[in-house]
């Protein structure tokens, strides 16, 4: 009998503990494109009125708070191909190293003057080894440019949290494995717009947050 109850309680507890990871779901209202993008459709960074945003549009939702430093971080890549960056907006955790392989026939010269990260990888072709890379060690928005191809543009969103996710093109998102506590849930919509919500996370709760 005790064994059954123990097993049942254990099962329940494990179920509960399984349900103890907080989930936030929601939808971000993505800005409708009222004007046609200025940049050519080749490139994925769009500017409307000086505001950079990926196109097709999506947002990045992340939980802002203090989190433990990661033990290790994966190495990401932003590829230059067809005179574009393959990623329009790359959210990553502070301290992530990003490689920038050149798959084009011409040379590229990736640099950024953004305060979050100023770097200049210099001119290099596809044959360059080791593949030039950069570690983004400060949170913020980094605008990547190519000194040779003035229209090449990409954004790197350096976040101090492990909990971030890209929305889909409708703006829907789902964050899982969130710790419980009081945090700010932020939605990065474009370079000038980040909406935040205060959230109280209970273990095992499933929240729904919509932006705005």
């Amino acid at each position, binding site marked *: 009998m005790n064994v059954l109850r123990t097993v049942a309680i254990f099962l329940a507890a494990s179920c509960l503990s399984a349900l103890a990871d907080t989930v936030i779901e929601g939808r971000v209202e993505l800005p409708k494109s009222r004007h046609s993008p*200025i*940049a050519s459709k080749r490139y994925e960074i769009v*500017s409307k*009125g*000086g*505001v*950079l945003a990926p196109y097709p549009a999506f947002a990045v939702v992340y939980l802002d708070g203090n989190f433990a430093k990661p033990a290790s971080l994966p190495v990401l890549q932003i590829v230059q191909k067809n005179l574009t960056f393959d990623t329009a907006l790359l959210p990553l955790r502070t301290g992530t190293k990003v490689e920038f392989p050149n798959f084009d026939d011409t040379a590229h010269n990736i*640099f*950024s*003057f*953004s*305060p979050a990260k*100023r770097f200049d990888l210099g001119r290099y072709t596809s044959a360059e080894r080791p593949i030039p890379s950069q570690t983004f060690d400060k949170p913020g928005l980094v*605008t990547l*440019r*190519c*000194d*040779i*191809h*003035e*229209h090449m543009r990409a954004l790197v969103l350096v976040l101090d949290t492990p909990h971030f996710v890209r929305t889909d093109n409708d703006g829907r998102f789902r964050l899982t494995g969130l710790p419980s506590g009081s945090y700010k849930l932020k939605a990065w919509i474009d370079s000038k717009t980040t909406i935040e919500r205060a959230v109280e996370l209970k273990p095992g709760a499933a929240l729904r947050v919509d932006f705005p």
Partner: protein
Amino acid sequence: MVVVVVAITIGGLTIAERTVSGEARRAFQSAFESELALLRAVRGIRHASLEERCRALVRKPRIHAALEDNALDMLYPSAGDELGDVLADRSTAGQPFARHSIHAKFYRFLDPEGAVIPAGKVAAVGAMEPDEEKQLTASKLPHEQQTGYLWRKSDAPDGEVVELISTPILSSETGEPISALIAGFPPSGEKAGGTGMESGIWLGERLHMPALAGTARAAIGAVVSRAISGSTEAAAEGIPVRVGGTEHFVFFERLNPGSLFPPAYEVGVYPLAGMHARLLRLRWQASGVGLLLLGLGIAASSYISARLAKPVRELAEVSEENRVLRVRAEGALEFTSNELERTARFSADASHQLKTPVTVLRAGLDELLARNDLPMSARDELGLLVHQTYRITSIIQDLLLLARLDSGRVQPELVPVDLTHVVDTCVDDLHLLNDSMDLEVELDVPSGLLISGEKRYTMLIVQNLVENAHKYNLPNGHIRIATREENGMVVLTVGNHAHPIPPASWEHIFERFHRAAVGENVPGHGLGLNVARELTRLHGGELRLVRSDEEWTEFEATFRPANPIPVVA
């Protein structure tokens, strides 16, 4: 006349000189204008290349990154990498074509409000005085490139005017100007040549023209200021200005029309001294040439008229002489004709007058002869006297005939005359004479030979010749009468034995009353040959003595044939 010519020439010269002056003036004007156009073209090309350079500079991604990615501190350092070669390099200063270099003296960036973004390291971007930098600010950023001018201090005493090119930097995201790059370039080193034109810039109410002295500059500056304030953008024609005692033309034109920068004008000053000198020289030359031509013309016309006048004068004189001569000749002619007529009339009158007494004389003598009571000796004497009267009559007739021939009153009626018959008659008459000579007569005359003449006169001619042939013959002599054709004329030759006639007398024998050294015994009165010749000439022929030597004397008389004999060549 001379006055008129001179007046016309001077008038023509004046018109010509005015035309030439006008042409020269226009030529000068167009020379100035073309030089100015050339200068402007060169400057335009330079300006366009500078603008293009600036446009290329502002497209650089780093400059856009600095401005757009919130990294203004990177602006000038990035620009320094890109624009480093834009700045004038001291190493190029002394090289040839340095004045054509398009290196900037300085550059600055403007922020979106139009204020100058201060540069960190000024040396890298070209030093500027604060008040100069202030002139770079704009109230708003332009959308297009603007041209401006800045008067700043320099090593030259009067400073220098640099050309500003402001190039907007458009956001790669919005297309709106987010900044502007202002670069200052040294003025074009092109200098006008040839016409002595000086050029300068009117900027900020002042004239920058170091080539001119201060007073000249002030004067021209006043003129330009006045003209510009008259709201003209350019002077289409030169404004005359008196500078330093010589005339000048001043042109001006807005250098940066439509620019947001303050207006600047290019001022060109053209010294007319050169043009005036040339015009004056032209005028002198024209006058000199004109006077020369006038002088030549006058000299030529004088010479020609003199040359023409001389023969005319001579002609006039000669005509006068001729007139005088003619008058005299006419007078002489008239006198001679009068004389002839008088003589002829005299002869005729005389003859007529003589005929009557002679007739009376003869009649008286005949009457005496008819008396029976005269002695034989008296009868012989009377006979001789009668003979003499016949002689007188003959002379009178001959004289009358001669007189009539002389007066030209004889118009022979030329008919065919049987010469043969005439000859026969004369020869027959010979036989009737008291022929103690015993002459032999030979005839060689074809029968029926016709000549053109008057019967009576022909008879006289032949009679005379034959009688002479008989009269002057020698005892037992011959007479030969023959005819022949020669040169279409009939030639009658009468030849006879006779004492030769001395050659000196050959012509004299045809004179009136000439009887050579012949005694009075030989009958005749010396008119015969004269009459015969005159009559022969009247018939269109001639009587000549063709031979008279020791043996033979021969006369030749030519007559026109009645029917023209074909000439045997």
